[in-house]
């Protein structure tokens, strides 16, 4: 929890107040048996009947104070822990959104998700319960001992000598069970993984009739989880019986020792009665303390997982501009200068790539799987930083741009891009303040207007989760509309039209040419027909350029390109048509 100190700090006074009230309540509660003892001792003396009612009233008063204070403090604990958690989640989500792609790759999305949800939830729970039990249990424990000592110091030696024994057993048991809880968490991750895979792969699993196999796979992780959970539970379950056994034996000892004390005139019998009350109180407090231990160990793991992300260093911060060159016309809109990059540090995904692209031009990138096509886009948009060389937009190194300044220039469709739950218009607008006219125009240009009009509700039709109620082609057109809606400076299309039929694809190209003449386009495609009109075509293989130029030039000079063209267009004769 220490690592989340700065979230708790703003509420320190409020929390201190909560704890103080909790303390007050505990003290009031401690005085209930005290006054009971007074009633039994003084009230039962002859002619002191009035005291019975006075102390009885005091007991009621204590009970009332305790009630009022506890309710108030409990409410306060819920409020402060909620506020802390809210801020914590807010920051965590913000941080996750600011991580570089490289950091996110390392963290993985499922892990980020569970940190943001179940881990913060656990922290919240701990903060709330911790405030409620954290002061109450120890103060009842210590307070109970103090009360006993003040009532009868010698008799109090019995409980005082017992507490270390209980503390030791709690410590031993907790030490043994915590590693088990940690393991349990990782097995739980396995369970989650199997379920996730079964949901996302349902078609393949059904097609191959692997239900039985999957059930076995699940049985494996499920059984392991059950086993660890059972062992961990059985060990921590020792806490309760051991603590109550020790205290109950202590209670027996109090009766015996008390008998000698009373016989010697050193103790009052009513004190024994009161002691029995305090023993019950202490026992409950003891169990409360062990609960806190278990809770703390579980939530500390969560707090660490949250803090690990929050403390990640910032990546991809803008750097100082080194130089600025020339006017708009002479400077290429996009330029790669001898750029090299590797995702893993082993082997290059892009090596020594250079090209220039002027405003309004189209660059097409073609190449084999893993040739580095998407990497070019990742570097251009500064999703990753190049290892060597420079990526320039308007002659300016992309690293010198402010994040929003850079992203404001792009309209982009990634491979299998993301469709959010919501309406079609929401998806095109994509959280931007765009008016309806812009959305409609973008849909028209993306050739999406027709299918949208065919949907019930049109633009306001709901898109299902992951766009499941759209066909592949509809999804792609929707995404292209999104990219066009902001009237971008640079349009990036990564395999964005693969599910479009040729006619739609051609109409899309025409719309781009006519309506977005000043937009510079970078597109990745597999089809010759999609790239042949480009002003510049790069053919990549294994991170290197193996051909560049216009369609006709490549047909002539680049054997790989010619091979692709022939595969797709038959003999290639239509290509010249």
């Amino acid at each position, binding site marked *: 929890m220490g690592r989340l100190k700065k979230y708790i700090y703003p509420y320190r006074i409020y929390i201190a107040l909560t704890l103080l009230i909790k303390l007050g309540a505990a003290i009031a509660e401690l005085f209930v048996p005290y006054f009971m003892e007074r*009633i*039994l001792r003084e009230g039962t003396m002859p002619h002191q009947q009035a005291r019975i009612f006075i102390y009885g009233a005091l007991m009621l008063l204590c009970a009332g104070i305790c009630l009022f204070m506890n309710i108030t403090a409990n409410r306060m604990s819920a409020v402060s822990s909620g506020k802390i958690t809210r801020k914590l989640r807010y920051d965590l989500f913000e941080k996750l959104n600011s991580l570089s792609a490289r950091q996110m790759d390392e963290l993985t999305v499922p892990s980020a998700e569970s940190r943001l949800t179940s881990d913060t939830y656990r922290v919240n729970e701990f903060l709330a319960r911790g405030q409620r039990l954290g002061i109450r249990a120890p103060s009842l424990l210590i307070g109970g001992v103090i009360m006993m000592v003040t009532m009868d110091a010698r008799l109090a030696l019995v409980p005082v000598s017992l507490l270390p024994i209980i503390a030791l057993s709690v410590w031993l048991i907790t030490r043994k069970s915590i590693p088990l809880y940690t393991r349990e968490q990782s097995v739980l991750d396995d369970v989650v993984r199997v379920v996730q895979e079964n949901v996302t792969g349902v078609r393949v699993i059904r097609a191959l009739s692997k239900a039985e196999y999957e059930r076995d796979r699940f049985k494996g992780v499920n059984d392991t989880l059950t086993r660890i959970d059972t062992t961990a539970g059985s060990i921590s379950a020792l806490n309760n019986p051991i603590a109550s056994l020790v205290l109950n034996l202590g209670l027996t000892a109090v009766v015996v020792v008390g008998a000698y004390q009373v016989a010697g005139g050193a103790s009052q019998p009513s004190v024994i009665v009161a002691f029995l009350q305090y023993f019950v109180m202490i026992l409950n407090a003891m169990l409360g303390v062990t609960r806190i231990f278990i809770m703390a160990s579980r939530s500390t793991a969560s707090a660490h997982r949250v803090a690990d992300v929050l403390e990640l260093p910032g990546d991809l911060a803008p750097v100082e501009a080194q130089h600025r060159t020339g006017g708009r016309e002479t400077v290429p809109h996009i330029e790669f200068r001898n750029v090299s990059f590797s995702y893993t540090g082993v082997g290059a995904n892009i090596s020594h790539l250079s090209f220039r692209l002027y405003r309004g031009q189209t660059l097409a990138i073609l190449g084999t799987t893993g040739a580095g096509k998407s990497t070019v886009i990742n570097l251009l948009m500064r999703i990753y930083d190049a290892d060597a060389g420079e990526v320039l937009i308007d002659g300016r190194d992309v690293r010198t741009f402010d994040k929003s300044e850079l992203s404001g220039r792009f309209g982009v469709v990634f*491979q299998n891009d993301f469709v959010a739950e919501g309406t079609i218009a929401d998806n095109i607008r994509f959280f931007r303040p765009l008016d309806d006219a812009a959305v409609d125009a973008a849909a028209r240009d993306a050739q999406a207007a027709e299918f949208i009009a065919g949907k019930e509700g049109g633009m306001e039709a709901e898109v299902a989760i992951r766009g499941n109620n759209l066909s592949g082609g509809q999804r792609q057109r929707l995404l292209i509309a999104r990219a066009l809606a902001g009237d971008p400076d640079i349009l990036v299309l990564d395999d964005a039209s693969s599910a479009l039929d040729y006619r739609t694809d051609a109409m899309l190209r025409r719309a781009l040419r006519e309506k977005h003449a000043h937009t510079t386009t970078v597109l990745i495609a597999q089809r010759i027909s999609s790239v042949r009109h480009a002003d510049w075509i790069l053919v990549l293989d294994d991170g290197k350029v193996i051909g560049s130029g216009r369609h006709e030039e490549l047909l002539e000079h680049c054997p790989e390109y010619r091979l692709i063209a022939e595969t797709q267009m038959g003999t290639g004769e239509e290509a010249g048509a």
Partner: protein
Amino acid sequence: MIKTDKAARMENRRSHDRLLKRLWQYMGRNRVLVLLAVFLSASASLLSLYGPKLSGRAINAITAEGGVDFSFVLHCAAWMAVCYVLSSACSYLLQFVMIRLSRSVARQMRRDIFDNLTRLPVSYFDRRPVGDIVSIITYDVDTVNQSLASDALQILQSTVTVTVSLAMMLSIAPILVTVFAVTIPVTFFFTRWLARRVRPMFRTRSRKLGELNGFVEEMLSGQKTIRAYGREGAVQQRFEEKNAAAVNAYTEAEANGTVTGPSVTFINNVSLALVCVFGSLLFLKGRIRLGDLSSFVQYSRKFSGPINEVANIIAEMQSAFAAAERVFALIDAEPEAADSPDALALEQVDGDVVIDGVDFSYDKKRPIITDFHLHAQPGALIAIVGPTGAGKTTIINLLMRFYDVDAGEIRVDGHPIRSVTRESLRRSYAMVLQDTWLFSGTIFDNIAYGKKDATMEDVVNAAKAARIHSYIMRLPNGYQTVLTDNGAGISKGQKQLLTIARAMLLDANMLILDEATSNVDTRTEQQIQAAMRELMREKTCFIIAHRLSTIKNADNILVMRHGRVVEQGTHDELISRPSFYRELYRAQFDACED
């Protein structure tokens, strides 16, 4: 308002009862353990309840008129020690049993959920976020499980304790028991009132948390896009709305739920005060001895203590009930209709597929496919082309019976597919889908997935045919490389090749390809095509692809438009006359405009 409130309450109670019955059924599977738990619980409680009686007698002996009766005090103390030791032993055994019981129930629940997941129709998953299902099988089952272990145990023991304490108090001083005639009903009605008030709050709490989880899952998966558009701020704002809703629901449930504990403690303290006051008055009148009063006070604590605990755990029970509702809803979700009892298991399919007048729609309102006809001879290569949204991918859903047709029928080798087992139908197809799917396991396991007892040689041959062998061999662990997170770290094309290799291993006579090659580069595709031709020999193939070159070799091209087949024929036939196909084909080369 009041009326609907009442109706809601009735409904609440009924669902409450149903849930308890269901939970009991789960416990019932371990009847012996349940009986043992009841026995141990009763023993532990009875043994520990004898303690106050003994201590009371000892105190009486201490305050005896003729001085302390040491031998009697020691006698009592010895028995106390025996009772407490036995009681602790029983209560640990009880916990031990209950933990086993509850964990086995949780395990059974998870298994039941998962079993149903493997039976639910595909459409269920098309409509439901993954995170939701995951949170039920983990978080909700865990909540029910925790509650079973601790809460059920408490209730069990409390019942015994309350009954025995009451009996003891009655035996000591019946008149003092009247104090509880006031406090107990107050407690009872108060907790009931509170439970009703709080239960919907806990339900809201779970729901809001679920919504937050869903949102987070969605947004994190679309993070790259959000960032590319620089929309982090707007998304953050949306997140904050959901976050605030979740936190507020939590705070409200918590703030109200935690009223219970202090309130019940208050009532206990009040009854303690009353017992002391009246007890002392009785003492003065000589109608009760100090030791008896001590016993009475202890029993009164024990008597109302459990009620306190029960009230405390009511809050937990509320969230457990809400969780149980979600768990059972998933277990009870309607599975795919079972195969008819006389369903035929297809064996050695020839691959003669007839689609006869099929109508289909996903939401009944918008027909996707109407009056669709097709006859595929064994070994035929059927290419399906057409503009997007023409209904091409839907055909896979129907051929594989992921969805059932609304009208008409599909026959394989003359058998209507509704009259054959789904398993045998699906196994007679090899399928490669647009969305690649790999699971966490080795590359070997992933390729061999569809074929039982596949040897290393089989797998290597398939990988070679899919042109992925050399890539695999370059990995440090080769075929034993473990894939995680749906193959994060390997490219889409390579994933695709792996799924193609998987399909190649299958022993099926029919093949379905859904744009499978669109993510593989053209050069590799050309090689795959050669391998596929080999694989496709003597097989009926349905290929949904947009690349016309892929389908030029087809025996029959179905040109689809608006859910109907508008043209059929070979490439040469279709291209030689004015046709929609020719239009599509030409569009590929509309370069002429430049």
